[in-house]
């Protein structure tokens, strides 16, 4: 480990000046959603830590998460962060293939303490035969790789919560990384969930930068998501929130309210129960995010979002507004409610207590 250069040395070797480094740290602080005053602390930390090895495993996924990352809008910062790590295995991006590729993974695993990034869910039904790489089942590969890892970062809703492969009727028995640890199928390691379908690229790199810079897991919510990106609901950070507060809602996608940019709550927006950074970080070079383009949030960074009822049905909530405020909204096609931001154990009991609520109930 000690032979690896520190990140500051690595950047200096690439001809990055001290002024550029300062700028990099300021941009990284912004990327990590940290207060700008943290930039000097980031600079100091980067001068000490060494370039860690990263193994990226892609399982039952659509490559959308990798696409999101590689097409991210600020290549300078993102690519520098990727220069900060040693990406030893990523079967979509690496040049090697076949045995050479798997050999690279085995080599990287010889030195414990690496970081494992996972995108895609893991099928466990029928011995995990539904997805294999080099003849190894996803479950076996994850089990072997996680064994000596320092931590696992689940990139995207599939790796974090099972995502679309796990959607009803879940033919492959798909599960997320955390669920496999909970079931004792793989070793228990610290997990950072970075959900989204796909996650915002700046959030992926921001989380990595946080781990690299401070060498520690950032503060997480009950679902294992970093609070600096997933701490607020889309609704609370939405620029259309003033319309909600004034009771001004678009009723259809082409009425006067829609044209005037009023709140999309009644058109099924899942903003109130969805935790993500879209409303501030935005997409496509900071251009906009779904609500800014006139479509409600579909709640893609929450567990079971695909089975949570129609994207176009207004959220309903528990009759007791206090439990709603405490985060007890729950997913379930039967009651047509939004996504959960509570832990899984509480879910089934809460489900029974839920009933469809009107907008009025929500505003009590």
């Amino acid at each position, binding site marked *: 480990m000690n032979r690896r250069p520190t990140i500051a040395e690595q950047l200096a070797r690439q001809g*990055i*000046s*001290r*002024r*550029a480094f*300062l*700028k*990099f740290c*300021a*941009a990284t*602080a*912004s*990327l990590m*959603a940290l*207060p*700008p*005053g943290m930039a000097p602390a980031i600079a100091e930390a980067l001068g000490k830590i060494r370039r860690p090895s990263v193994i990226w495993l892609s399982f039952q996924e659509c490559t959308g998460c990798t696409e999101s990352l590689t097409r991210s*809008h*600020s*290549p*300078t*910062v993102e690519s*520098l962060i990727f220069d900060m790590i040693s990406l030893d295995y990523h079967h979509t991006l690496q040049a090697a293939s076949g045995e050479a590729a798997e050999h690279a993974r085995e080599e990287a695993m010889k030195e414990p303490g690496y970081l494992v990034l996972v995108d895609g869910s893991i099928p466990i039904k029928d011995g995990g035969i539904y997805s294999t790489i080099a003849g190894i089942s996803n479950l076996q590969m994850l089990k072997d790789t996680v064994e000596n890892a320092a931590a696992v970062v689940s990139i995207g809703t599939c790796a974090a919560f099972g995502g679309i492969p796990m959607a009803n009727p879940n033919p492959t028995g798909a599960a997320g990384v955390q669920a496999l640890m909970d079931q004792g199928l793989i070793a228990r390691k610290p997990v950072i969930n970075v959900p989204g379908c796909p996650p915002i690229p700046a959030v992926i790199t921001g989380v990595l930068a946080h781990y690299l810079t401070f060498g520690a897991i950032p503060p997480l919510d009950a679902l294992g998501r970093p609070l600096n990106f997933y701490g607020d609901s889309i609704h609370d*950070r*939405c*620029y259309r*929130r*003033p319309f909600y507060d004034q009771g001004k809602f678009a009723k259809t996608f082409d009425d006067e309210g829609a044209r*005037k*940019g009023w709140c999309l709550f009644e058109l099924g927006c899942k903003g109130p129960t969805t935790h993500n950074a879209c*409303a*501030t*970080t935005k997409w*496509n*070079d*900071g*251009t906009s995010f779904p609500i*800014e383009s006139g479509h409600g949030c579909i709640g893609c960074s929450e567990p079971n979002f695909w089975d949570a009822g129609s994207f176009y049905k207004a959220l309903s909530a528990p009759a007791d507004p206090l439990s709603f405020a405490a985060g007890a909204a729950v997913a379930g096609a039967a009651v047509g409610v939004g996504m959960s931001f509570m832990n899984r154990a509480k879910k089934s009991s809460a489900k029974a207590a839920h009933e469809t609520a009107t907008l009025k109930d929500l505003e009590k």
Partner: protein
Amino acid sequence: MSGLDNIPVNVEAPAMPFGSGNTGAILAELETSLQTLLTSGKEHSIDLRSLPLLPGELDYLRERLGKGEVQVDVNALGHSTVIETAIRGVWWVTHRNAIDNVMAEFLEVSFCPDIIRAQRDDVRESLETLAALLAGDNHS
């Protein structure tokens, strides 16, 4: 230049009877920060990308703060601009990357933003460089 710039888009400002309320909050934060700068010398910085702003509110803020006497271009990891606003001591700092996309945007409250200052280690290296230069001259 991002490819998106080539798409002609005419953004109509929505009929807003009110703003997000954040521009007023930012101006108030600047006022407090200027006060702190004067009394304790402590600098402050506001990350403009971390706040939900309505379309047009950033321009409104730029207009309200105006343009001061100093404008600095920094070429490090792409182009950055440091522009003093008409409110002296408040600087509008925009960091762009190699392909000119904005990476980060701050309002900084300081006598002189750090990015402009030469750093101590750089000055030390400059001394060595200059000494080597002079030694070379003396030999020829």
